[in-house]
């Protein structure tokens, strides 16, 4: 392929050379097991702890509250199953939303099969939960509120600080899946009253295979991975030193450049959205235009189907993703698009473009020009468009 424009940064990101260089020695030279007694390993354990400190600092946490995992899904599983088990005698009710990542949704469904009750809060057309409904859903048996920081498909940022306030007021533990937000949005666990937070390194130019769960001091939850005494005896498994060092570096860079990145990406994102909506008829933006991740644009194009669009984008060298059923392997389109009220027909024609600070203005123009051409072409083949045009003529 001659040209490649990567616009799927919500799926994963590139490990930047700076991060890769920071990790390199921990594969070939500093390969010792940080848990071992000798000095060779002691240095590695110290470096791992430095990374822990760096990461803790980015969200206003203490290093003793950061627990490394193998990624966002594990962190979500641990937070939810861990609290569910720990507090099963107190209550068996969990509150979450309809637009969570499957790592949260399927974990909740698993718990439902084991006697727990789960409330799935609806969202409005922008993907925002209602704080009133959240407060109304809290019962004496509620043991956990798990609401994502920012949505992976439509980029909507939830009112996390207000959710934290409500959770604290009612004495309910608050977990947030911040996999899309960590490294992309300013987070302070104290100001936002967050008790548990999941994050993943590969969404912010770190390596795949490493994530974290922030656990507020004093919060008890059952272990998920049993075995050795790593991570203060709360998460077993040989410490992924290289991964953690890379995670630390990536977090440090992301938060050092945060404001600049947000400003840069927002400008490109807004241009992308503006051009698409103005130049492609019968298109719409999904998600909230204000409370939105700076890298996310999500569109629906009526009368066309998402997978066809993706393949044609791919042929033009553009990597994107879609919420159509055909790309998920199921018959239903994205649960997020359905939750914001889109009919199936329209949800099938969705495309998500997630940019990065390496995306250029030329990339945006190329993507819009390509989308215009492809949507046009697919519409010329679409019986739905044919019917629509005929109806318009009659009307």
């Amino acid at each position, binding site marked *: 392929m001659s040209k490649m424009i990567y616009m799927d940064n919500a799926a994963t990101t590139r490990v930047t050379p700076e991060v890769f260089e920071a990790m390199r020695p921990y594969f070939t030279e500093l390969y010792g097991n940080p848990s071992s007694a000798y000095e060779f390993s002691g240095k590695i354990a110290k470096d791992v702890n430095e990374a822990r400190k760096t990461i803790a600092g980015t969200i206003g946490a203490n290093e003793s509250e950061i627990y490394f995992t193998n990624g966002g899904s594990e962190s979500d599983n641990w937070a939810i199953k861990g609290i569910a088990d720990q507090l099963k005698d107190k209550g068996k009710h969990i509150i979450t939303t309809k637009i969570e990542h499957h790592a949260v949704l399927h974990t909740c469904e698993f718990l439902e099969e084991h006697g727990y009750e789960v409330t799935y809060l609806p969202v409005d*057309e*922008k993907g925002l939960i209602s704080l009133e409904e959240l407060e109304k859903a809290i019962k004496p048996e509620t043991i956990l509120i798990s609401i994502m920081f920012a949505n992976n498909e439509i980029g909507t940022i939830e009112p996390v600080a207000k959710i934290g306030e409500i959770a604290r007021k009612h004495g309910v533990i608050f977990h947030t899946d911040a996999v899309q937000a960590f490294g992309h949005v300013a987070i302070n666990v104290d100001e936002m009253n967050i008790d548990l937070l999941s994050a993943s390194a590969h969404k912010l130019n770190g390596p795949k295979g490493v994530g974290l769960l922030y656990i507020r001091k004093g919060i008890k939850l059952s272990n998920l991975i049993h075995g050795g005494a790593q991570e203060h005896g709360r998460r077993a498994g040989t410490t992924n030193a290289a991964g953690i060092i890379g995670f630390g570096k990536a977090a440090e860079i992301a938060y050092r450049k945060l404001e600049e990145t947000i400003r840069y990406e927002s400008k490109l994102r807004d241009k992308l959205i503006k051009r698409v*909506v103005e130049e492609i008829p019968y*298109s*719409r*933006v*999904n*998600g909230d235009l204000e409370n939105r991740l700076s890298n996310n644009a999500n569109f629906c194009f*009526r*009368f*066309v*189907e998402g*997978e*066809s669009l*993706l*393949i*044609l984008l*791919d*042929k033009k060298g553009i990597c994107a*993703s*879609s919420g*159509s*059923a*055909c*790309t998920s*392997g199921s*018959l239903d*389109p994205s649960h997020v698009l359905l939750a*914001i009220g*889109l*009919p*199936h*027909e*329209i949800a*099938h024609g969705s495309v998500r473009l997630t940019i990065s600070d390496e995306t250029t203005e030329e990339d945006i123009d190329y993507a819009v020009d390509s989308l215009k051409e492809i949507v046009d072409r697919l519409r*010329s*083949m*679409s*019986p*739905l*468009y*044919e*019917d*629509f045009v005929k*109806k318009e003529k009659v009307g």
Partner: protein
Amino acid sequence: MSQVTEYSEKVMDHFSNPRNVGEIENPSGVGTVGNAKCGDIMRMYLDIDENQIVREAKFKTFGCGAAIATSSMATELVKGKNVREALEVTNKAVMEALGGLPPVKVHCSLLAEQAIHAALWDYAEKNNISIEGLTPPVNDIDETKEFYEMQGEG
């Protein structure tokens, strides 16, 4: 999004350069199958002469790569055949001609078979004839109101 790599070269060819896209004015038969809710709709137009030979076939499809490729192949396969032979263009024949389909896409070839049948049924009804082995089409478009009423930007 692994479908792209699972598609055969033939499928990619028929998706990227679909044959016989379009409409036929005053067709001998036209049939539409599938529904928008599930993400696939195929419409097939047939021009059939007095000797019951399919002179021309055209299609329009809303759907995934496989849906477009199977429509394209189905129109190729029925062209030049008489109506009885056209009826024998099964989903299996379409799939074979495309060098196979990923398992989750087999329903697309069924839709293509049904599109042929629906167009032939329309032809038979218009001409008041019966074609042996042809049954009425089962699949209709689910033309939900909101699809047409859904407006503009969010």
